[in-house]
């Protein structure tokens, strides 16, 4: 009895402390959080028209799109953003031949060591090299970019909620601050050096619009390079960099599930058979 009585007293004590010292004051001063009003204009990522080929349980990479996306990365993003977990040799997965990968790698300059003096220098890339970072270190990156460090993009689409659509929406979603904001939040103003983007976490992003006009990139395959097209292509490419095994994973999944379904049905029949002899004999 004593342990139960003790428990009841202890329980009432804990709940009493919680009620009188935390819950009650909280309830009396009840105030939902105040967020800057312009947060209401932040929007969830949207998908490009037609979505992406790799989505869904049967999705596959669209190599042409990945190659276009790589071109956009190379010509636009790479000036500020690295891709440190991806090696040039990985490009062969986008449908490039071995020779093309070698030539592509050689187009990039990577850090190296002078074999005679041992001093740091640069050399053309080899397929085994990782993509180089555009800045020597974070301090250099911050100094060159108004104190905002451009993040590495290798994992970007996995590091954001709904990442592929987020990258697409962010790139295609720059614009003047909604006039409605000015109407509802008169004091709102995008700080100097920042840019309004309704898909960014706090609607003001340090990155200047990278993809600004149609035809900024000339696609080798003749696809019309609209802003939306370029944004979608690079979003697809960055999905691949974040998870090169995405399609392989899904393709492995189906046979595994099929086999397990088969095995589970057999296990069920076997179990039923074994238990059959024990069935309740209703009188």
């Amino acid at each position, binding site marked *: 009895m004593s342990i139960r009585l003790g*428990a009841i007293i202890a329980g009432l004590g*804990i709940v009493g402390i919680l009620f009188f010292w*935390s819950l009650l004051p909280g309830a009396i001063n*009840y105030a939902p959080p105040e967020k800057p009003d312009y947060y209401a204009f932040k929007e969830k990522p949207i998908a490009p028209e037609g979505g992406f080929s790799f989505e869904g349980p049967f999705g596959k990479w669209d190599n042409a799109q990945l190659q276009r996306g790589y071109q956009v990365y190379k010509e636009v993003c790479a000036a500020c953003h690295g891709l440190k977990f991806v090696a040039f040799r990985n490009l062969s997965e986008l449908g490039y031949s071995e020779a093309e990968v070698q030539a592509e790698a050689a187009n990039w300059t990577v850090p190296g060591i002078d074999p005679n003096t041992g001093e740091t220098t640069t050399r053309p890339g080899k397929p085994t090299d990782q993509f180089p970072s555009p800045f020597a270190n974070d301090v250099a990156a911050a100094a060159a970019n108004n104190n905002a460090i451009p993040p590495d993009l290798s*994992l970007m689409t996995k*590091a954001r909620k709904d990442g592929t659509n987020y990258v697409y929406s962010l790139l295609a979603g720059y614009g003047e601050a909604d006039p409605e904001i000015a109407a509802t939040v008169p004091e709102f103003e995008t700080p100097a050096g920042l840019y309004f983007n309704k898909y960014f976490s706090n609607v003001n992003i340090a990155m200047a619009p990278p993809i600004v006009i149609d035809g900024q990139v000339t696609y080798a395959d003749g696809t019309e390079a609209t802003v939306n097209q370029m944004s979608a292509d690079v979003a697809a490419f960055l999905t691949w960099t974040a998870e090169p095994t995405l399609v392989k994973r899904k393709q492995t999944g189906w046979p595994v599930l099929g086999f397990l379904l088969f095995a*589970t049905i057999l296990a069920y029949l076997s*179990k039923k058979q074994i*238990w059959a002899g024990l069935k309740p004999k209703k*009188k």
Partner: protein
Amino acid sequence: MSFAWAKQYEPKNDFTKWIDEKLPLPRLVYNAVGAGYPVPRNLNYMWNFGVLAGFCLMIQIITGVILAMHYAANTEVAFATTEHIMRNVNSGWLMRYAHANGASFFFIVIYLHIFRGLYYSSYKAPREMIWLLGVVIFLLMMATAFMGYVLPWGQMSFWGAKVITGLFGAIPLVGESLQTWLLGGFAPDNAALNRFFSLHFLLPFVIAGVVILHIWALHIPGSSNPTGIEVKKESDTVPFHPYYTAKDGFGLGIFLLAFTFMVFFLPNMLGHPDNYIEANPLSTPALIVPEWYFLPFYAILRAFTDDLTIPFTGIVLIQAKLLGVIAMFGSILVWFILPWLDKSPVRSGHYRPMFKKFFWFGLIPCMALLTYCGGAPAEQPYVLLSQIATAYYFLHFLVILPIVSQIEVPKPLPYSITESVLGSDDAAPGNSASSGAKGAGEAGSLQPAE
């Protein structure tokens, strides 16, 4: 196991006889999970989760040992080696996703196992020791899971480590030194990462050891069952093999279907995007949340928002931070005294109308609410909701359970397990009437749960 009718192991040839004399391991297995272990014949599918939990532990140990072959516990490279596993190692992505989702499924299985125990009062005498060891396993699992989450050295890893070790900082006088000692520094860094890796590798084997004790303790009184009445005679039981090996095999198939579906098609659903950003000691994520299986306890931690003061004097007796930590640990520690809080002679929730209502309409929604609030930002109305749910949680175990078990009038129990399955039992007194006795509602027909 002591039922007189338990089948005896009989070595069939000279070799097995020789083994049986020198090291009777086959006999041990036979008596533990073979035909030599008589089990109540009426176990439902909620009794599958013990075996499944063992299977989960195995998945985690196998995939974990493999990941450790490719991972390096150094803050410079930890994040990169994790990506190396995902990109370069043969089937590395499969190993890592299986390990990460395996942790989640381990907790799903364990929670179902625990809540089965709570509903059917499996913790009551004579099975208190099984329950206590189970709570120990759960605590070890939480420690292991927490340290494992730190290893990829992403943003959530780092800030999770900082926040959780910060809990120990709440302890008066020694707290701060304790936190520094745990981390081997003033913030999570190489020292912390390395010791977490070491302990994360060690603890699963400790868990495996306690699991053996858990099963040993189970085999002394034998398995409980959905009616909660004890086994009386041979017709109440069936041998574990082949009856429950077959049933567990089927359950395992269902489990694996769900598990592999997550691994192959939604591997990051239960994770957090921020952990794909490398740890950055200079920038805290907007919302730090632990893995989903810690959310109820995290909500309890955050429910205490104000210091305990002497009214109108401003003298602080206990800081809010410490109150939260005490409540969070207390919420699991109450499980240690559970067998002595619930004095009802009836075990199964089926036959306890009042207990059943509090379980389904009190405890379960309370846990759901706590989980939800734990994942929400620390602002209104979530704080208020988590405070209400926290209050109910403690009331349920410490106040409601003892009182309900005192005043509740249970429904009449069947005479035996055999009767509950077959509808009648030839051995029951006045057996022809026994099936009709269900509606009689006489407390006198209760079986004392010795």
